């Protein structure tokens, strides 16, 4: 029985409320965009399998509530993530300022070696822009992160940024992956890695997504 994927990673979307985390996710997994999204309560997730360097990667993307009050809940999910998107809204200076706070939360709660990427969303709203592209680049550089300006609305850089973070996570875990590639019984080893990466998720998970 062939496996549907080789490895499973967990990515996490964080950032202020209303920056468009859920929209990014919906655009990436379902290629859908609704201007009238409803706020995420607690956490939610969606899955997608993509191929990077010939490896089928199943990514489980966790979407979180942006309100600070929910942090006690959302931080529980930080430690299970291998990659994190820090999202701000280019039309909201405040959401950009808050990235610092989000980064420090990541430092505190996420595991060491977690991969991060900075996203300036709503790039289509040029006339409302409050945060320059250079500011985003500058901040990303400071924290040593990659940076993308995205638009879930116009589908700008969505696939690119998700693929990039997946690549980064793959690179960070290259050692384990190399190890398992050299082994003959590939499948067994991959399964082992999977166990290590987090618990494998069965089809029951996908049924959850329809409730969002």
């Amino acid at each position, binding site marked *: 029985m062939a496996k549907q994927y080789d490895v499973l990673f967990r990515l996490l979307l964080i950032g202020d*409320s*209303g920056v468009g985390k859920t929209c990014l996710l919906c655009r990436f997994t379902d290629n859908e965009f609704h201007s*009238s*999204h*409803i*706020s*995420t*309560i*607690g*956490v*939610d*997730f969606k899955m997608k399998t993509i191929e990077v360097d010939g490896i089928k990667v199943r990514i489980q993307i966790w979407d979180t*509530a*942006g*309100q600070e*009050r*929910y942090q*006690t*809940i959302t931080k*529980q999910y930080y430690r299970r993530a291998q990659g994190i998107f820090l999202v701000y809204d280019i039309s909201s200076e*405040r959401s950009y300022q808050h990235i610092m706070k989000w980064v420090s939360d990541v430092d505190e709660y996420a595991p060491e070696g977690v991969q991060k990427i900075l996203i300036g969303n709503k790039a289509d709203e040029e006339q409302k822009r409050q945060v320059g592209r250079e500011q985003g680049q500058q901040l990303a550089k400071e924290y040593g992160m990659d940076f993308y300006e995205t638009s879930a609305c116009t589908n700008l850089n969505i696939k690119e940024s998700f693929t990039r973070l997946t690549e980064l996570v793959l690179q960070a875990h290259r050692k384990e992956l190399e190890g398992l590639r050299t082994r003959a019984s590939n499948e067994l080893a991959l399964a082992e890695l999977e166990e290590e990466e987090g*618990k*494998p*998720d*069965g089809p*029951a*998970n996908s*049924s*959850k997504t*329809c*409730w969002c």
Partner: protein
Amino acid sequence: MVWAKQIFLMQDTKTMKEKGINRLYKKNSFSARPPAVRRGGREAGMEYEDKTGRPSKPPSPKQNVRKNLDFEPFSTTALTLEDRPANLPAKPAEEAQEHRQQYEEMVVQAKKRELKEAQRRKKQLEERCKVEESIGNAVLTWNNEVLPNWETMWCSRKVRDLWWRGIPPSVRGKVWSLGIGNELNITQELFDICLARAKEKWRSLSTGGSEVESEDAGFSAADREASLELTELDISRTFPNLCIFQQGGPYRDMLHSILGAYTCYRPDVGYVQGMSFIAAVLILNLDTADAFIAFSNLLNKLCQMAFFRVDHGLMLTYFAAFEVFFEENLPKLFAHFKKNNLTPDIYLIDWIFTLYSKSLPLDLACRVWDVFCGDGEEFLFRTALDILCDPRSALKQRSSGPVLFQMDTLAAEKNRASFHVALKQTNKQTNRKNF
């Protein structure tokens, strides 16, 4: 229409005197199950009748049965059996006989189908009438008997049964208000004061907000501004498809007022995402002040306070209690969830915070609220179990008629006794763990 054409075609091909082809046609047209006769067939038949100028009367062996029907089957008249046009050689007698027989079979089949459909429709109509009648009766009972004597009657068996079956929309708000109660003794005046204060704050924030109010110690102006912005953002994201809470919508200000007044009434709790949904559902059923009173009292319930203050420890206790309840009732599914590491926080948080108003269709959510307002928080967990058990059954109701008396799947009337036992156990657990 296709069917009528097929008959015509078959008769036509006969002229070719190619029995092989003809047989093939026959086989194709008749050996297969006759397709449903559609209403559209009538036109085709008529057209043909007109052309020949001689309307034919299909012989029906069950003519008398037809008269007894309440619903006249209409489309069988569209099927007409015609002799071959005069300019073509006539059919051999035995073949004509065979066709007649086949034709009769078709008519009988079509009639049967129509009769069935008509009976189904009649039954549906009767059921709908019955439901509407019982809703009407329920409204009368609530208005004339229960509501005027609430104190003495609300815990009676009769009222509990009535309640369980669903509160008619016209009295829903009142019953919810009474069911939730007003432990906090909030009055219209208090609401007005809180609202006035909220408005003052909005003004000061919009005019630059230089005068710092010291009342809410620990809350900086920036925080309050952020909270206000978030509230406004969420208001526009509350039931967006209803288009009544959004900018310019009729209930936007009402929702804003309630949420604003609440943050002044309980600055220690403030605005928490999810509240906008609860307030919105209340607004749909109550006046502003009453909605505020119900809202504040609802949030003051043990379970809601634990969640809206994001008391993680207490939330975990609720989750643990739910898991016990889950395992007891659906051990197989529970094991499956455990194996896949699906913990209650993933699904319960959203459900409990918004009291299902975000994840269930609104009419169904109101049914959950009906029982929740009467039976309390345990029902929320019971609902969760029902959804997990068969999410499709809960969703299916979206398309079908009035939801009012359709709680069978959700409330599982059939195992109500065991439900109450389970409830008691959960109740004990949560109570024990709460205090």
